[in-house]
């Protein structure tokens, strides 16, 4: 993990406050594994507010056209406040201080394809950002990733193309059904689980707390392993401040507090106390 001042290569407005930021940093890109994140300083000067850096999932790795070597990271930024607004306002050529890659990645055991048939990727809103690298990794392991992607309105369903280009099965949902199925993303997921649970499945979810909780409950009901990528406000992202913890259960079923930046962001949904949201 490195702390580097790197350049913005380009920035793309995806609508509905979403922006795709392309960062140039071969070293950090080369170290990245699916589910990891970066900490971005959202102001010019290191001591300018907002003081604390902001965590962002690494959506994709882009590569040198010629060599094919990793050249940098793409991140998805939704403008929700002071820090993200500044990131959304960055211009190509601007420099940002970026720490990472950080955190525990998704688990994709080698040969997973021999054990399970489908991997259900469940994304809500910007949670989608954690799932693309995972989908690729799963394909390498000969499993069939299936994307379940929900938003309130169609505009929330950004960055579908990169998944569709992988040629994987996709299920979209919106509240009013104006795109894909009508309702929560857990609706098609439930159908899928009841149909294929016996075939061997895994669930990987990233999105709003409520959505991940629902996905977890379905996974439990159908006795399917489930990993979630969690969110928490972060101080250091180095495991030092203990500010990013979530309430969880240890082997003995006793309360414990786990650091989203270290033991997470990806955790087995079974360890999480879903009654205590960390934000």
């Amino acid at each position: 993990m490195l702390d580097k001042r790197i350049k913005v290569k380009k920035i793309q407005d995806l609508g509905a406050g979403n922006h795709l930021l392309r960062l140039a940093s071969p070293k950090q890109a080369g170290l990245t594994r699916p589910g990891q994140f970066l900490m971005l300083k959202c102001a010019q000067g290191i001591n300018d507010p907002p003081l604390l850096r902001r965590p962002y999932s690494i959506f994709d790795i882009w590569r040198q056209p010629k060599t094919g070597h990793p050249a940098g990271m793409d991140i998805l930024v939704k403008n929700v406040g002071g820090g993200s607004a500044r990131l959304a306002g960055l211009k190509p050529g601007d420099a940002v201080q970026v720490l990472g890659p950080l955190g525990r990645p998704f688990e994709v055991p080698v040969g997973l394809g021999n054990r399970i048939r489908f991997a259900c990727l469940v994304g809500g809103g910007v949670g989608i950002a954690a799932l693309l690298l995972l989908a690729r990794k799963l394909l390498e392991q000969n499993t069939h990733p299936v994307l379940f992607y929900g938003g309130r309105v169609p505009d929330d369903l950004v960055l579908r193309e990169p998944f569709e280009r992988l040629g994987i099965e996709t299920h979209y949902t919106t509240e009013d059904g104006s795109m894909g199925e009508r309702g929560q993303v857990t609706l098609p997921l439930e159908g899928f689980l009841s149909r294929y649970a016996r075939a061997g499945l895994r669930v990987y979810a990233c999105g709003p707390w409520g959505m991940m909780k629902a996905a977890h409950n379905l996974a439990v009901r159908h006795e399917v392993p489930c990993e979630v990528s969690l969110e928490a406000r972060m101080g250091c992202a180095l495991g030092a401040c203990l500010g990013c913890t979530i309430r969880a259960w240890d082997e003995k079923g006793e309360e414990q507090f786990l650091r989203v930046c270290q033991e997470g962001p990806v955790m087995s949904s079974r360890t999480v106390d879903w009654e205590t949201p960390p934000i």
Partner: protein
Amino acid sequence: MAAKKPPQGGRNQIKSVKTSVEISGVQFKNPVLTASGTFGYGLEFAHLVDLSSLGGIVVKGISMKPIKGNPPPRIYETASGMLNAIGWQNIGAVEFITRKLPALRKYDTRVVVNIVGFDLEEYLEVTRFLNDCPGISALELNISCPNVKKGGFHFNKNPRDAFEVTDKTRKASPRLPLWVKLSPNVTDIREFARACADAGADALSVVNTFVGMAIDTEKRRSRLRFGTGGLSGPAIKPIALRMVWEAAREVKIPVIGVGGIATTSDALEFLIAGARAVQVGTASFYNPAASQDIAEGLERYCRSHSIADVNELVGSLKT
């Protein structure tokens, strides 16, 4: 731009600068330490900071038994600062000594252990235990943490209690120097500085966090599950600096300045106000190398200002 010219008007730069400072008989290679709870057990920062470049590392508050801490959310950012209510989560003294300290000792820097407890007996227990452990340069008695329902905090509500806990802990650590970390949430920090000095404290760390609060206006709830939290960061620097200045004039023992230090110039302000050393806290979160930057910056400053010994700066405020 007077701000950039040396006061003595450009005397020739000097070769070597003495940066080491002494605190209760212990030499620190430079006056820059990391503040407890903001640098973990040090090791978390090892790939980003040259730990051996630091005067010392004050580790996260340690209790005899492990503590789980407060439920989330535990932190929230405010204007030029942050609130935290971690609640003393730590791995406990035994785990620290067996699993963290050995690795930390490999670095050429001083280790100071911040100690916490829910009552006097717990303070004494962990103090006695650590007093016999090699590789520790001092204990920092945290009687000022605002983020636990009971415990240390109340010792800093009245000077008599501060005297008592310092006196008893002092006697429980015959071998190790004892620093006492004071709370800023008091009417007159001098009374507490005096009480702890009288009780035999070897040094004072000034200050801990200010009790603060932030509210989510939509949920009508505190931003922190615990309710209130400790305010830290550049926002508090002016108040911390004033308290360091008051404490340093009140007592003879060394005062270590803490509170909002993020730059070399911040550190200089605290030294000039009377601090023998400084601790860098919140700044390490958003600039992991802040402490190293400041340690190096102080040496550069002394050189460019023809200051042969960093101790010349201490308490040099003109009034």
